[in-house]
């Protein structure tokens, strides 16, 4: 049953892609309309409306997204049935190589990630029709956008279904290549073309690493089926080689530091609903690949791997948020936060590897639940924030937050929805982001029983880095929300914008916001159902997650730690209401509106507000070593001794450390190597004849 829903979901997304092909085929439709008119001439008026340019465009656009929405609903249904049944379904499709058909396997882990795809997809299908409207009259064709969005979603779902290495890689490449076209969609800007190329390049390198990792397993097992991989026993060295290749390949797609460089370039380049899917969902598919490869396909895990994953995860978390702090492009900022959140997920996975190798399967299950739950939460709030950012850009045509401000008065509904996303990503109680970070902390706190002393001190240290990153995230989102929504509008665009007339553009993010609140207040049912995933994967679960009842979350035991988000919410509302009754209602005077305090000089204007650059300046100075800061001030002076300053220009460029230390050396190396290799290409025909001659000679020698 669950597999059937999954197939329907894939089919619906493919259908959405195919339907997009009809965009440029209005001629056929006109012919069809003529045919009808000739037969029933009386319906001319109705048909005129039905087949008018506008009506056609709108219904066509809607149908694309309705199909995507259907795909999302079926994905949720498939995931829910798989997780409730706990059944594992397998199937073979008569496609692929003659001797290796596509093998399909649908278990609780795939089901959970199907749900992660499904929920943002439903929101995107609500948001999309209003958003893509502006592309219709531009130079871009909706055909490309619709076709590759459909293929992209189908590719992600097929990755989750794959049960042999061949099919997995095909689905993986389908996902990568179709999203390349989405990143390159607005290709008239050179920066987008560059981002798309970088994305494709790194996707290919990552895929190569994944193929090699499968190759190690295939070499020892002799087959390409995942079942063959599961049964093979590897020596520790080969297992480590496979693991490192897998970590590299999947980590590149997931955006772990220092393999993240494509992410902040590619995600902002794509249209907003695609960025939401890429950031919210595609990165999770990479996490799925890593979990499947490490915990399912490899027969054992080693604690050293856990240490490596933990350190990389903690590094990604901290560097992701620090780089995000310095961004002023709203979508780039959100993209860097994806790096941070992937880091949090990998901290959970690293802890899980450590505990599995220590034989503490129950705490390992806790760490896995924390990581999986954060996958879901991040998918929800990051898609919400990207869709919200898309709305803001759509309404104001400004992507730089320094040009916005005061939107809370102009976009009141969106500002509430966006605030919920902000509170969730900043990991504040009682929202969903907090629950998964809390679970990660609880998993880290069980480190006392680890045998290795190095790990025992490494685990709490990385947890404190997580705390630092969490606090910095809150700072970053105070900056984002404060500069974009609060204060005075900084430009005309920001001052004149208004709420979108298209209701779906608000309904999509609002649906995700509702889910964020729901999962934040009642996390226990979801965590209980994750027990099936960890049960299938690790052979253990959290038996006492609801020992005090379903309102309470007790991951280890009631006396060790307990958290009741619903009671927290009730407490906050109750005390807030009491304060309101007691302080305001009883003798409180009505507030009077007045000018803000201007030190007695008067004439405050929007340019005197604190800017985003100023807001993040203390962080930039404190963490100076991790940034490459270029700060220039140019002054033009006049008068005696340069007494008057005529013009003053301040320029600030903050960039990523990894460019200078990782990417440029590698690029340099590749160029040097290719120069070196190119020496054999002399361009002289005699040399090539000599090459052929000697090659023949050697071959003949080899044969005889």
């Amino acid at each position, binding site marked *: 049953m669950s597999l059937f829903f999954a197939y329907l979901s894939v089919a619906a997304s493919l259908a959405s892609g195919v339907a997009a092909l009809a965009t440029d085929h209005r001629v056929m439709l006109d012919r069809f309309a003529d045919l009808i008119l000739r037969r029933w001439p009386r319906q001319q008026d109705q048909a005129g409306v039905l087949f008018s340019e506008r009506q056609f465009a709108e219904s066509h656009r809607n149908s694309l997204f309705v199909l995507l929405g259907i795909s999302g609903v079926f994905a949720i249904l498939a995931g829910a049935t798989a997780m409730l049944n706990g059944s594992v379904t397998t199937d073979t499709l008569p496609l692929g190589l003659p001797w290796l058909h596509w093998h399909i396997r649908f278990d609780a882990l795939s089901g959970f990630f199907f749900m992660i795809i499904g929920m943002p997809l439903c929101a995107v299908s609500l948001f999309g029709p209003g958003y893509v409207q502006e592309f219709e009259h531009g130079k871009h064709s909706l055909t490309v956008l619709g076709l590759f969005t459909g293929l992209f979603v189908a590719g992600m779902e097929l990755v989750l279904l794959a049960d042999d290495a061949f099919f997995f890689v095909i689905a993986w490449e389908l996902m990568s290549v179709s999203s390349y076209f989405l990143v390159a969609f607005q290709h008239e800007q050179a920066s987008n073309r560059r981002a798309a190329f970088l994305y494709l390049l790194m996707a290919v390198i990552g895929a190569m690493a994944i193929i090699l990792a499968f190759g190690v397993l295939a070499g020892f097992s002799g087959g390409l089926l995942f079942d063959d991989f599961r049964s093979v026993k590897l020596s520790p060295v080969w297992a480590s080689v496979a693991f490192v290749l897998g970590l590299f390949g999947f980590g590149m797609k997931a955006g772990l530091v220092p393999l993240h460089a494509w992410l902040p370039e590619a995600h902002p380049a794509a249209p907003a609903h695609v960025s939401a899917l890429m950031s919210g969902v595609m990165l999770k598919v990479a996490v799925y690949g890593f979990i499947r490869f490490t915990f399912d396909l490899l027969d054992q895990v080693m604690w050293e791997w856990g240490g490596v994953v933990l350190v990389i995860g903690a590094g990604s978390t901290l560097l992701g948020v620090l780089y995000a702090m310095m961004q002023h492009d709203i979508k780039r900022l959100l993209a860097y936060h994806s790096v941070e959140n992937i880091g949090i997920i990998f901290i959970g996975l690293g802890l899980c590897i450590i505990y599995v190798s220590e034989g503490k399967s129950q705490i390992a299950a806790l760490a896995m639940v924390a990581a999986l739950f954060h996958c879901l939460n991040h998918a929800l709030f990051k898609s919400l924030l990207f869709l919200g950012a898309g709305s803001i850009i759509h309404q104001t045509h400004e992507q730089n937050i320094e040009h916005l401000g005061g939107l*809370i008065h102009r976009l009141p509904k969106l500002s509430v929805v966006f605030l919920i996303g902000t509170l969730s990503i*900043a*990991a504040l*109680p009682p929202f969903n982001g*907090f629950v998964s970070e*809390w679970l990660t*902390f*609880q998993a880290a*706190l069980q*480190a*006392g029983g680890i045998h290795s*002393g190095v790990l025992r*001190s490494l685990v709490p240290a990385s*947890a*404190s880095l997580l*705390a*630092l990153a969490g*606090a910095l995230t*809150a700072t970053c989102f*105070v*900056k984002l*929300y*404060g500069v974009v929504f*609060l*204060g*005075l509008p900084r430009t005309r665009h920001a001052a004149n914008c208004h709420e979108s007339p298209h209701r779906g553009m608000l309904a999509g993010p609002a649906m995700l916001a509702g889910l964020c609140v729901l999962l934040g207040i009642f996390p226990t049912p979801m965590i209980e159902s994750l027990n099936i995933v960890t049960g299938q994967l690790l052979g253990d679960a959290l038996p006492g997650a609801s020992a005090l009842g379903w309102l309470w979350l007790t991951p280890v035991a009631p006396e*060790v*730690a*307990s958290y*009741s988000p619903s*009671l*927290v919410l009730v*407490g*906050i*509302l*109750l*005390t*807030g209401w009491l*304060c*309101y009754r007691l*302080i305001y209602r009883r*003798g*409180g*005077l*009505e*507030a*009077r*509106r007045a*000018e*803000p305090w*201007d030190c007695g000089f008067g004439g*405050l204007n929007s340019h005197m507000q*604190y800017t985003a650059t100023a*807001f*993040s*300046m*203390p*962080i930039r*100075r*404190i963490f100076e070593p991790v940034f490459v800061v270029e700060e220039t001030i140019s002054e033009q002076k006049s008068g005696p001794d340069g007494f008057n300053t005529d013009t003053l220009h301040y320029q600030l460029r903050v960039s990523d450390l990894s460019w200078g230390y990782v990417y440029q050396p590698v690029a340099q190396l590749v160029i040097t190597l290719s120069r070196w290799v190119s020496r054999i290409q002399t361009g002289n025909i005699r040399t090539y004849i000599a090459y052929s001659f000697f090659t023949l000679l050697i071959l003949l020698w080899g044969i005889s």
Partner: protein
Amino acid sequence: MAWLLALLQTLLFISSAPLLAGWLKKVKCRLQNRRAPSIFQPYRDLRKLWKKEPIIAHPASWIFKAAPYVVLSTTVLTASIIPLIAVNLPTAKIADVVVLIGFFALGRFFLALAGMDIGTAFGGMGSSREMTVSSLAEPAMLMAVFTLAMSASTTNLSEAMKYVLDTGLVLRPSFIFAMLGLMLVAVAETGRIPVDNPTTHLELTMIHEAMILEYSGRYLGMIEWASQIKLMIYGVLIANIFFPWGIAQEFTLEALGVGAMALTFKLVVLTVLLSLTEVIFAKMRVFRVQEYLSFAYLLTLLGMLSHIILEVQH
């Protein structure tokens, strides 16, 4: 019965917080050879603020009006989960110590947003500095808490206090480091000298005050009360975690009385210590705060390492 007691304890907590602030001011004035106001002065100030007509700037949105309610209610909720004069209360189960740090973060988040809401330079500056200071303080605080939690193998405050009570007076290097670190964090988070000066209104040095500069009337009253409760929360945390002796373990009138007396004594000692440091030290430059807080982090990290190396048995 237990829930009623928890409610009474919370009421006691929030109503005695202004008294602690008054006492702190009194000690500080005496140390500076000044005449002190009555220790009930904070109550009068609060009453005056609640009666006054609040003034709100034109660009303010609903966030500006909602923030004081959020700040006060999260602070009260935090006060309700901390064992004050008795352990084993049911409210301690609602949230553990990690959630408690989350509550502070929630209140601070809204206050920082409110600082940005008016669109003046002061508010933004205060928000930026406050968020920076607290994001550096949070890992140190969590590390201190983790040291405690790993020793007691629980993050539930009530259980942790009972663990310290049960094991008796044992010299633990990790606890000493954690306590020193937590004290430094407490000074930073409550905005006291040498990190911030709660009595200043000089724009170059303001942190917390700059953020709430636009508040007046009952809104300011709520924020002031919340920061008094916050000061007391940190005092009670330090006093009851590291020196829980005297706290009531059963709910008899006698035990509760002893608990109240013991707590008063501990808080008096702590406030004298705090006012001594406030008198001795000068306020730091804003960019020296990071060094101060990294020292706090280093202390708590040492505490954690000494716990792992010296105290864990295998």
